[in-house]
């Protein structure tokens, strides 16, 4: 799978901030019939990336021989909120039905953070740090994302997200890695946190780093491990190959993070790496020269069947702070124009609250896309008078988000996903 677009085709389109929808070379159509983005005001130019590219782009369309980078140097970060993040309290709708169906869980109107240009929803107060990105037109909020025929099982739904709803195929990003001409560097696709099957290929596997402090050898000489050799095919061969790449991954990771800060405290998942911690490590990796281009950061805890209000507030606060710090780090590293970040979760939650101060598994959920290449705005719809089995009816398919991500990387989305889904256009 060769990249079919190059960076050249995108550069310049981001200048000016306001959506001039450009159609890239593969002939994807502009979204017109789909839910329209509410463009948030006119974007003040002062909030645009500090230095619009004025010199001709230098990144070639094929992997750069010097840097070894794929995708014309572009990077993609996927943040997974495992457990089914609650859409309705993330983007509280201005609807009486919302308050009727959630007598104890609905956020009061005066708590909800208003979004300029949007009058039918706002932000959870914990997401207030994202207002800056919204006002600068770099934040796309997607409500009601989910499969047309949803499934309320975590595992079925996660699996459908990971595999872009093609159950016999590997992860949708794993397919991209499988399609690269040669095996990329070990940290090229890295999962931080609890693993990331969307990065699992049929042939190539990501590096999974549960906690940065423990990703180093202790009383082990990696040369012994390298001596296991290489292999393929059967489980033993896979183990040998995995060891070989692990030796290099540990080496690269040590150089990047230079980490003496080993988190020694055993705290179970009470102290599990947060989204913010994961994104801080992601920023270090992306800014390094180890060829890191696909990063998945995941954290669990979003399965809020009970006691949702305080739990969800903390979780979203972690997300918001993590995102803001991450984007600032990318700006500092000079990568602001090269990174697209998206947030996903396997489903939204039931519209009506349950009796435990939480809500059960639902359908239409929440995603966002963040970055200089993003055409900010509100995408998708929530109509609480038109529910699907008591759930938010999905209005945007996950494949539409994936199509945008693959376009961002310049990868042939039709070939990767079976077909493109152009129902939303999140990128400039």
């Amino acid at each position: 799978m060769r990249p079919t677009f190059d960076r050249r085709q995108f550069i310049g389109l981001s200048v000016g901030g306001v959506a001039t929808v450009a159609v890239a070379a593969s002939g994807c159509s502009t979204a017109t019939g789909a839910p329209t983005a509410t463009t948030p005001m006119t974007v003040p130019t002062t909030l645009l990336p500090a230095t619009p590219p004025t010199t001709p782009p230098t990144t070639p369309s094929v992997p750069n021989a010097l840097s070894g980078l794929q995708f014309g140097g572009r990077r993609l970060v996927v943040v997974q909120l495992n457990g089914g993040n609650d859409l309705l309290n993330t983007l509280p709708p201005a609807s009486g039905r919302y308050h009727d169906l959630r007598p104890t869980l609905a956020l009061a109107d005066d708590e909800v953070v208003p979004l300029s240009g949007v009058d039918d929803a706002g932000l959870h107060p914990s997401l207030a740090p994202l207002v800056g990105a919204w006002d600068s037109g770099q934040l796309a909020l997607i409500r009601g994302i989910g499969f047309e025929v949803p499934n309320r099982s975590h595992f079925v739904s996660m699996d459908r997200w990971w595999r872009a709803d093609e159950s016999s195929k590997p992860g949708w990003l794993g397919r991209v890695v499988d399609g690269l001409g040669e095996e990329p560097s070990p940290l090229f696709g890295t999962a931080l946190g609890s693993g990331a099957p969307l990065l699992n290929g049929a042939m190539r596997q990501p590096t999974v780093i549960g906690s940065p402090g423990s990703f180093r050898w202790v009383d082990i000489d990696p040369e012994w491990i390298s001596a296991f050799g290489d292999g393929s095919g059967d489980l033993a061969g896979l183990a040998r190959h995995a060891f070989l790449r692990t030796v290099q991954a540990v080496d690269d990771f040590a150089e990047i993070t230079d980490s003496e800060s080993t988190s020694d405290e055993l705290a179970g998942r009470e102290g599990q790496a947060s989204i913010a911690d994961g994104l801080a490590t992601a920023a270090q990796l992306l800014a390094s020269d180890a060829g890191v281009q696909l990063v998945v950061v995941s954290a669990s805890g979003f399965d809020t069947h009970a006691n949702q209000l305080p739990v969800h507030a903390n979780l979203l606060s972690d997300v918001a702070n993590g995102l803001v710090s991450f984007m600032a780090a990318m700006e500092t590293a000079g990568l602001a124009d090269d990174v697209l970040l998206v947030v996903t979760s396997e489903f939204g939650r039931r519209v009506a609250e349950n009796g435990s101060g939480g809500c059960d598994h639902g359908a239409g959920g929440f995603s966002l896309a963040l970055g200089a290449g993003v055409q900010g705005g509100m995408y998708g719809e929530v109509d609480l008078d038109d529910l699907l089995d008591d759930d938010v009816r999905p209005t945007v398919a996950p494949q539409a988000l994936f199509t945008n991500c693959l376009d961002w990387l310049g990868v042939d989305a039709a070939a990767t996903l079976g077909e493109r889904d152009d129902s939303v256009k999140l990128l400039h």
Partner: protein
Amino acid sequence: MEAMDERDSVKWLHRRAGFGLPPAQMRASIERGFAAELDGLLSSVAVADAVAADPWDDESLPYDPMDAPSRRYAIASWIALMVNSEQPLVDRLTWLWHGHFVSALDKVRVARLMVDQIRLFRNAGLGELSALLRAVTIDAAMLAYLDLRTSTGATPNENYAREFLELFTLGEGNYTEADVQAGALALTGWTFGRGGGGVAFRAGRHDDTARTYLGVDGVHDLDTVIDAVMAQPALPLFIAATISQELLGDRDPDLVAELARGFEASGFVVGDLVRAALTAGADRAPSPVVLGPLPWLVVAARVSAAAIAPRESQLLLQAAGQLPMLPPNVAGWPGGATWFNSGSLVARTNLAAVVAANATDEDVLAAADGGDHDALADVLGLPDGGFEDQSRAALRAAPAGRDRLAVALVSPEFMIA
């Protein structure tokens, strides 16, 4: 691959259905032979002894969700129990059920409740499935983990009712959304108070309306739910596939169907299913099973007689991705080749160094000191044939002694049972 000879089948039995054995005990087992060993592992005496060998001191397990030391104690005691187990099949099945009927300490919070759930698996894990399902459903840790505790007739919570069908008994495709909803209502009323002990049925919280559930009319409470699920044709197949996958690494549909028929004929006695699976497995070419970090650690520590400081083992198991009582989600640990991810391999290798540093078995240490890699494979309980050439190269790369033992413990041959 051919079927195993007697010697290899005994080693296989202990690696799959137990947690391996130190060399001297393994030699004695091989003398007794496969059939006698299987009988011994499954004897009712072994089960009764297992229940008696409860390592937890309830005084150290307060019903206090804020008490972190009790969580570490609960986990450490369980790991030590498995390493020292004299009823290894009981403890191996307990581990299997822990990964199947999942609850996790991060949500349950009170370590005592998780310990009581493990006790339940040790008590009832080889008995009649219907009794196990009934007990699991109203186990306090489970009531907390999958929210039945807070589910009432007026405001039912579907979490348990869904996972019960999808992950515990039937599998996706064998039930409908309506079944989930009817099940959730029928299971309302079971709860426990703040202290954690004393699970009780509160009729005022229960919806006793008779509904159709899994095609069975009149389902309205716990017993009728269990009866309905036990009558499903998918049930024996699902449970047989679970046991076969875990113990044999094999989901061959013909084998699973045969095991399921026998399971049903036995009156759904889990011990009979396990016996049938292991007997069938010993007659077939073995399918590889990747040992997860926890069972791998237990085998390594048992075989080499290594005592490991609980704190060290827990930190490294956490980094390796398999701290007992903390499965990642209600589906348990994913397993297979996913254990070859870099983070897990690094932690497992570091753990191997810790095991090797603490090994005390003289046969194992002598073999690690010498240059005979076949002897090392043998004392570690590996089948005849030992290490592949590439692994021998790695063994030579490491200095003789404990470093070489560490390398042997993370060889593909030792990690894959």
